[in-house]
């Protein structure tokens, strides 16, 4: 009849209860068992899950190691007084069931696990504390604007958000299905409706119309100029004397500028004007200062004189040969007299000699 040895471990205090068989248990065994009284019950030994076969085996193995294979019934004798350490160790290993060995090793790992959990809990507490501390109001926040009266203080917290379907066809934007949250680029947003009404807009417009009175300036005057009599003083804009644009007040012809802006085809006005001016200048230069034209004119004059002399020479020949009429000679000579050249002087002298000859010839005729 085999006895069942069960060790029970309670969470707070372990009270090893040993079901002792009918046989007497040696006090040494009891003393050893008390070593399992651990301060913290890291192990829960579930009675229902105890493997009786394991225990039986343990018992049987215990029995076999000591008694040479004869199974002991519920009696575990521990050789406490062993001189050889190796033998002692072997004995301890062989005596205690494997589950005991596991529980001893589990005790160390239990400690480590519980240490990690405690550390994690401590970190969480510290983190929460830091986060809460960071939300503390710092100077320079929006609260200062409220304090200064720039913002209303009752306008904190927006009404419940609206619900939308996915408005973007963009993979970066993810809208939550249950609520109106939008996730974009790692951040989560919610939709807050605009609360500005038309009445509020009208109030702002009235406020601005009272605060800002302004008329568009129609005339720009430099400092020191007098205001024309028919001009509203509110529409005068005074230009400081050192303003960079003060000197170019009236350099542009307005009509011309307007026409230039409206021009759609053709050459721009200034380009055309410059081109025409250049052309005129070139023509003028050509007319008066071109050396080619001057040489041409001189040559023309020379040619004209040469033609008259040859004619006279022929006439002289005719007179010498055929006694030409003196009237013809006289008609040709005035042309030479008008030229005023030294060449005509020779012709004049020739004509004079001819006249003298002709007169002598007439005298000679009977």
């Amino acid at each position, binding site marked *: 009849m085999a006895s069942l040895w069960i060790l029970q471990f309670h969470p707070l205090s372990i009270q090893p209860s040993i079901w002792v068989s009918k046989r007497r248990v040696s006090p040494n065994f009891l003393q050893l068992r008390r070593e399992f009284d651990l301060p913290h019950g890291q192990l829960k030994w579930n009675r229902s899950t105890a493997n009786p076969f394991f225990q039986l085996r343990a018992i049987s193995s215990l029995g076999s190691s000591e008694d040479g294979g004869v199974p002991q019934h519920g009696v575990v004798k521990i050789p406490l007084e062993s001189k050889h350490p190796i033998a002692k160790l072997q004995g301890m290993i062989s005596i205690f069931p494997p589950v005991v060995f596991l529980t001893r090793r589990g005790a160390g790992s239990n400690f480590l696990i519980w240490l990690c959990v405690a550390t*994690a809990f401590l970190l969480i507490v510290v983190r929460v504390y830091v986060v809460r501390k960071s939300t503390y109001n710092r100077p320079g926040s929006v609260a200062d604007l409220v304090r200064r009266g720039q913002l209303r203080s009752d*306008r904190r917290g927006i009404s419940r958000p609206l619900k939308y379907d996915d408005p973007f066809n963009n993979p970066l934007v993810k809208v939550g299905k249950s609520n109106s949250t939008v996730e974009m680029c790692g951040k989560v947003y919610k939709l*807050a409706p605009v609360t500005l009404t038309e009445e509020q807009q009208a109030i702002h417009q009235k406020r601005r119309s009272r605060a800002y009175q302004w008329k568009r300036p129609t005339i*720009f005057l430099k400092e020191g100029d007098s205001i024309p009599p028919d001009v509203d003083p509110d529409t005068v804009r005074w230009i400081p004397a050192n303003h960079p644009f003060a000197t170019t007040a009236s350099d542009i012809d307005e009509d011309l500028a307007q026409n230039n802006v409206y021009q759609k085809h053709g050459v721009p006005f200034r380009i055309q004007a410059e081109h025409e001016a250049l052309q005129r200048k070139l023509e003028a230069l050509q007319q008066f200062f071109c050396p080619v034209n001057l040489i041409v004119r001189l040559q023309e004059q020379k040619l004209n004189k040469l033609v008259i002399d040859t004619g006279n020479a022929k006439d002289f020949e005719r007179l010498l040969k055929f006694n030409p009429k003196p009237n013809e000679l006289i008609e040709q000579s005035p042309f030479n007299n008008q030229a005023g050249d030294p060449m005509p002087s020779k012709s004049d002298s020739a004509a004079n000699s001819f006249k003298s000859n002709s007169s002598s010839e007439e005298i000679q005729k009977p």
Partner: protein
Amino acid sequence: MISLKPLPTNLNSSFFRSLTPFKLFTPKTQTLKSSKSHSHSAIKSVLQWNRKPELAGETPRVVVITSGKGGVGKTTTTANVGLSLARLGFSVVAIDADVGLRNLDLLLGLENRVNYTLVEVMNGDCRLDQALVRDKRWSNFELLCISKPRSKLPLGFGGKALVWLVEALKTRPEGCPDFIIIDCPAGIDAGFITAITPANEAVLVSTPDITSLRDADRVTGLLECDGIRDIKMVVNRVRTDMIKGEDMMSVLDVQEMLGLALLGVIPEDSEVIRSTNRGYPLVLNKPPTLAGLAFEQAAWRLVEQDTMKAVMVEEEPKKRGFFSLFGG
């Protein structure tokens, strides 16, 4: 960034088929407001990202983009909204009305192609079509600068010049542009007066800080005195994390202070600086950045004369479980 609008009466179904890069689906309607007593004007909200926007108002739509305070993002808004409009198929002429400090050509990467300005046109050195610089990326986008940095435009004359310019663009042979967008200089001086002269509507760019809002309020008052009533607001450089931490005013706070309808909310994005360096507006980036998406949406609303009905507020991320407490 979500916006709702009333359901249009005629949806161009053929355009649905042409939108091949978009996911085609029938628009889902949700009634967010209670319908009014008369049934034919019941308000229904339609999700609007699957169709081309319908141009509202009379062409050309002359829009001036101003702010008052400098450095808030006027030129960036002009460049990105203008190119977004061009991508949507509208003809756009962008005018850099800053006489002394010209920047729009730099943002667009067209600085080497600007040979003539409006001053040369008025002087007769060139025609208007010769001064317009056409963007090679989008042929329906053109740029015109008022003047080069060293040239001078007489004070009091610039407003008339811009009026003539708009009239000339209306009657040009290529056709009247759909949008004329004017990049206004900072301040409320002569340059501002020049830029707002021909405008019919205004887009006010502001950042969520008190100094910018004060200047924006004054500029809004001046615009209203000059007769421009259609004024919408773009809130730029928004940091949702700072708004969540209550270190920055929220967009709704800004709207409460100014009392203007919202055209767009542009988040802070470092890509803006990179796009400026490259001369490549960030609406052309692929994949689009958050700021680029916001600019596209603002352009969409500008076309249809719509405003934002809701804004996005950052909230705490979803808890992923026990292990998120370990810093995940």
